[in-house]
């Protein structure tokens, strides 16, 4: 495993371990449904109980995502959201919160055309802690992962039910921060995994790495979060949160006074379940 600088992610997982509980990782898409509302959601997440924030970088063709996150990405793009806006959101967040880790999640093309090296510089200086780039596998570590690690960013990789022990070694090689276990074969927001099966899989991953393991895909409710958290270091919730944004909008897709509040109250409920 690559030796990395201690990041906010490392410190947060150490703190969670000391508290003896699993963390809550929340995903929302930057700029959804508009920049101002999205900033308000981001600012409210730590108080609502998010331990780690995943912020989606909108992309026109999110191939690994289900309808909820596809729609959230398109809402942000329709509102004119750019990669610079995403980085500005992080920079602004950091003015008042220097503790909560932020992981940017998305697809390679918007990073590639930014271009990549400049993106990594700007992300690091904005206060981003880690990256998840869905379509850049370990085989392409030279072009994004290693330059990210050089700049002190964690490169978080996904392990999936198709990742056998041999493949896991490749996946773990340059992974840092945490390992994200995708609990089902499928897209975000689809079926839910059997918690017992997830526990077995997480135990298998933990035999191969000392990194914290976060489990995601198909986790919607506080009860599911609590069940999945058994044996894992964190639970990721995404589609359920962006769905609540969608549900709060007016018919023509505008934010309402209830948009930020509905997401944050969902986060509060999930967080309470993990702290109980």
């Amino acid at each position: 495993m690559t030796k990395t600088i201690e990041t906010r992610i490392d410190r947060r997982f150490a703190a969670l371990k000391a508290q003896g509980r699993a963390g809550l990782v929340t995903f929302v898409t930057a700029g959804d449904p508009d920049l101002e509302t999205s900033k308000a959601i981001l600012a409210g997440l730590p108080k609502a109980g998010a331990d780690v924030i995943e912020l989606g970088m909108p992309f026109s063709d999110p191939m690994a995502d289900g309808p909820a996150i596809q729609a959230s990405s398109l809402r942000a793009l329709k509102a004119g959201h750019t990669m610079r806006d995403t980085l500005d959101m992080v920079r602004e967040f950091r003015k008042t919160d220097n503790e909560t880790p932020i992981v940017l999640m998305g697809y390679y093309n918007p990073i590639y055309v930014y271009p990549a090296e400049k993106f990594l510089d700007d992300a690091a200086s904005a206060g981003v802690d880690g990256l998840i780039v869905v379509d850049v596998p370990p085989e392409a570590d030279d072009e994004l992962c290693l330059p990210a690690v050089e700049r002190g960013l964690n490169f978080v990789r996904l392990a999936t039910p198709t990742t056998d022990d041999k493949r896991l070694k490749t996946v773990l090689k340059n992974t840092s921060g945490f390992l994200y276990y995708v609990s089902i074969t499928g897209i975000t927001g689809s079926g839910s995994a059997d918690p017992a099966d997830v526990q077995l899989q997480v135990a298998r991953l933990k035999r191969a790495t000392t990194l914290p393991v976060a489990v995601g895909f198909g986790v919607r409710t506080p009860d599911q979060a609590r069940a999945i958290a058994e044996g894992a270091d964190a639970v990721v919730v995404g589609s359920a949160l962006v769905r609540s944004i969608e549900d709060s909008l007016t018919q023509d897709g505008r934010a309402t006074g209830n948009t930020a509040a509905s997401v944050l109250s969902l986060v509060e409920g999930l967080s309470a379940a993990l702290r109980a």
Partner: protein
Amino acid sequence: MASKDQKTTEAKANSLRAGPDDTGFFGMFGGRFVAETLMPLILDLETAYTTAKNDPAFQADLKDLLLHYGGRPSPLYFAERLTEHYRAEAKKAGKPGGAKIYFKRDELNHTGSHKINNCLGQIQLARRMGKTRIIAETGAGQHGVAVATVCARFGLPCEIYMGATDVARQSPNVARMHMLGAKVNPVTSGAGTLKDAMNEALRDWVTNVRDTYYLIGTAAGPHPYPAMVRDFQAIIGEETRAQMLEREGRLPDTLVACIGGGSNAIGLFHPFLDDESVKIYGVEAGGHGLDVENGHAASMNGGRPGVLHGNRTYLLQDKEGQILEGHSISAGLDYPGVGPEHSWLRDSGRVNYVSITDQEALTAFQLSAKLEGIIPALEPSHALGWVTKLAPTLPEDNLLVMNMCGRGDKDVFAVAGYLGIKL
């Protein structure tokens, strides 16, 4: 099939036919940019394909299917009246000349296009791998029909993803897929065209990883698809080479093929890449014109490099790296990317990539119908649009081969509509 020919060429230093490298790159293009869930599947596929390619039994089975089921070899036809037409045009312009036009008649294959070449290869591979369910994307529906056909032939269930816009404009092919027993899933995300269909097929594959084989129809996507599809389509160029040698005693001087993802083109071009005397043209869909933003599908003439659908290649995209939908009258060319080997051949200068507008393609469509009695698909009508510009400027001894990669049955109602023909 290609193996003997390839071995001799690969031995040559600096061959343009040696790619991709071990990691699936043609220069900077190609690669394997997919989600981790799919990586083990892609790696398995690569191993299975490499083994099959070198297995004489696999090649013999495929050869037999191509001959007796696919209807190969397809004829190399001298288009006499078109040749006369272009020579008359040249004379009118005061510059005597006009190339000798041949059509490689892949529209005569079973299912009506070159797509069957690749489908027969990949279905054999899927069966070898023990896969029991087939999925595919389709634009014009030619690939969807070919997939549905081979699935019917080998008794495998199949689901085809097709953009809702394309379902509407290519309804004869939708009917054919249904009759062949395929399930057609209209895709409404995005503009409902080929790129969106490919996204949806990838989402299916990432969900059904154990039993499902994704039968990609063009020479794009993650490694090994671009190389594998090219290998299965290279029979077009191999036959052309042998047929032209027999007919004219020498190699052709000029090759022309249309480019969406680019499978028919790479199939024709690849066996000739190391023959420096052969000039090669790939014809992209110019739609309403290259100067119309988001109004064309010419990714190499009007796009820039990026990463989509598993490979790095030229893409239609905005300055933020968001993918544009593009536009073409032809559903088969309406794709914002292109196979990575074409991107590499573009940058290396070996192949000239040009574009033809909707209107120019429609004119060429009518020319072929009226002068040769061949109703072409809208896709090769783009290739013929370029031939219409190029042929009169070439000398009379220039041997030009255009790949007539699909027949126009699927397009007749749409074209009648464009031309205002009352039926």
